């Protein structure tokens, strides 16, 4: 699948004025993420190494690999929370750094408890102001940005609700809104579909894909279930034998590769209407 947006490096998008670090769109490099012989060590143990690949701007990329292979570690490197022990990792044209407002992050789904009394609107607002010290009210521009982010995930009607009473899928939409509110150019999602029902999973995948197209955002999505993504992924990064590798979807969706990846016998079945389906035996 060819992404029509990946060749566009200079796109004119409205910037949100009044935000303390306006994002400069004219400097968007052609590659959103670049790994150059990168390796990571945690506690003296190598998690993965020899990572050399680039992910073009605007693509929908899946990140797959067995439990404990270092998928979350890879996201934390991109977030600047872990420094590569070897090589270089560049995010949006610069070395990965902490607190980069151009990078949005949605962590693994964890249900917020029922009695958590915080309004959805305020929850999303924290994505914009939560890092800010000192007192001071939020500005009209900031409130508008939050309203826009809520609208982008179809959650305008949830604004006044306490997050604790919302369903898992609704809570996840709010986390995506919270990640979108700074107008990021890169969206990192760490298994946001876990414990969601099938319909909510499809809704979240479709939502993220729509946001990617409308906002020219690069998406890196950690998942265990490729089936949901066969129609949307441009590329896959897989962690195999302690090494992150980028490949096209077609290179990865093969029984031999997937069987090695999941350390289980994997087959690819075609339904009568031509749809592929990945299944374990």
């Amino acid at each position, binding site marked *: 699948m060819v992404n029509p947006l990946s060749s566009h490096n200079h796109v004119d998008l409205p910037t949100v004025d009044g935000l303390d670090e306006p994002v400069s769109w004219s400097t968007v490099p052609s590659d959103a993420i670049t790994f150059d012989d990168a390796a990571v060590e945690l506690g003296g143990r190598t998690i993965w190494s020899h990572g050399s690949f680039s992910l073009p701007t605007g693509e929908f990329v899946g990140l797959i690999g067995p439990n404990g292979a270092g998928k979350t570690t890879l996201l934390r490197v991109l977030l600047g929370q872990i420094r590569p022990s070897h090589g270089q990792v560049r995010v949006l044209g610069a070395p990965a750094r902490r607190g980069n407002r151009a990078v949005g992050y949605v962590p693994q789904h964890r249900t*917020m408890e029922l009695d958590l009394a915080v309004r959805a609107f305020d929850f999303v607002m*924290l*994505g914009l102001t939560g890092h*800010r*010290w000192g*007192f001071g009210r939020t500005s009209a521009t900031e409130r508008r940005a939050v309203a826009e982010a809520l609208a982008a995930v179809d959650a305008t009607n949830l604004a006044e609700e*306490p997050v604790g*009473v919302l369903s898992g899928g609704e809570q996840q939409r709010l*986390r995506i809104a919270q990640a979108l509110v700074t107008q990021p150019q890169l969206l990192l999602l760490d298994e946001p579909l876990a414990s969601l029902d099938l319909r909510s999973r499809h809704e979240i995948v479709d939502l993220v894909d729509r946001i990617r197209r409308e906002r020219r955002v690069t998406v890196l999505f950690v998942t265990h279930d490729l089936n949901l993504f066969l129609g949307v992924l441009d590329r896959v990064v897989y962690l195999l034998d302690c090494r992150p590798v980028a490949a096209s979807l077609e290179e990865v969706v093969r029984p031999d590769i997937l069987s090695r990846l999941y350390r289980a016998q994997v087959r690819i079945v075609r339904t009568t209407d031509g749809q592929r389906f990945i299944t374990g035996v």
Partner: protein
Amino acid sequence: MTPTIFAGPSWNLVADLQTILSYGFMRNGFVAGTVIAVMAGIVGYFVVLRRLAFASEALAHSGFAGATGAVVLGVDVFLGLVAFVCTAGVVMGLLGERLRGRDVAVGATLTFALALGSFFLSVSSKLAGQATNILFGNILAISPVDVWYVAIFALVTLTVLAFTYRPLLFASLDPEIAAARGVPVHLLGVAFMVLLGIAIAASVEVVGVLLIFALLILPAATAQHLTARAGRAIGLSVAVGVLCVWIGLLAGFYAPYPPSFFITTFAFLVYLGARTLTPGVGSTRRHSARANSPCDL
């Protein structure tokens, strides 16, 4: 007519207040109690949000050893409490995630602290009169110098909270996202334990180590049941706490029973009333969801 402490109120509000405030210990209790209720109400909001209610209980109990130890050493009880509870809080904060699900370890430590307190009780004759005040508090026994200590510590606590308010809220709700946004989540967690230690030590002056829930948790939990807006919840939490303390002071002035009994009872009744008489935040959504249930015929 010169009313004694045990004379009933005249129900002339101005005259009664004049009578009450003509006593130095009542003025001390009024000023310190109000300041402490404000501080506990605000800190308590984050305690409930961060699920630290049990940890607060443990810290307060460990304060028994701190307070009795201070008496044995001849140090100011309040300062001894602050030092001991804050240290215990920082240790708890540093252990952080590793403490999650370690209820038994926390319980064991607080039991040991209580036992240590009982040991200090037995070795010091000075403690006999103070033990009850440490366990159940006595707002009428707050010394003038403690009023100053409480005021200074409250000022520091509230200034720090005003400065860290938003990042602390962010880190309390979702530490992973906050960390990704550059919030120093771990440092904030430890710093909050120091503020919690101060709030607990101050609350012990009013309700003692055993009734800490009354001032620190119940007003904040009541407020969070009633509103999902942070600003309103904090304001409501403070209002409930201050009202509890004032009622305790007045009742304790006229009735021959300890003020902490009235404070705790009132805080409990307000909490119980809010939980049983009001549907709570998000109830409209829960109800409307039920009304539209596909299982309805």
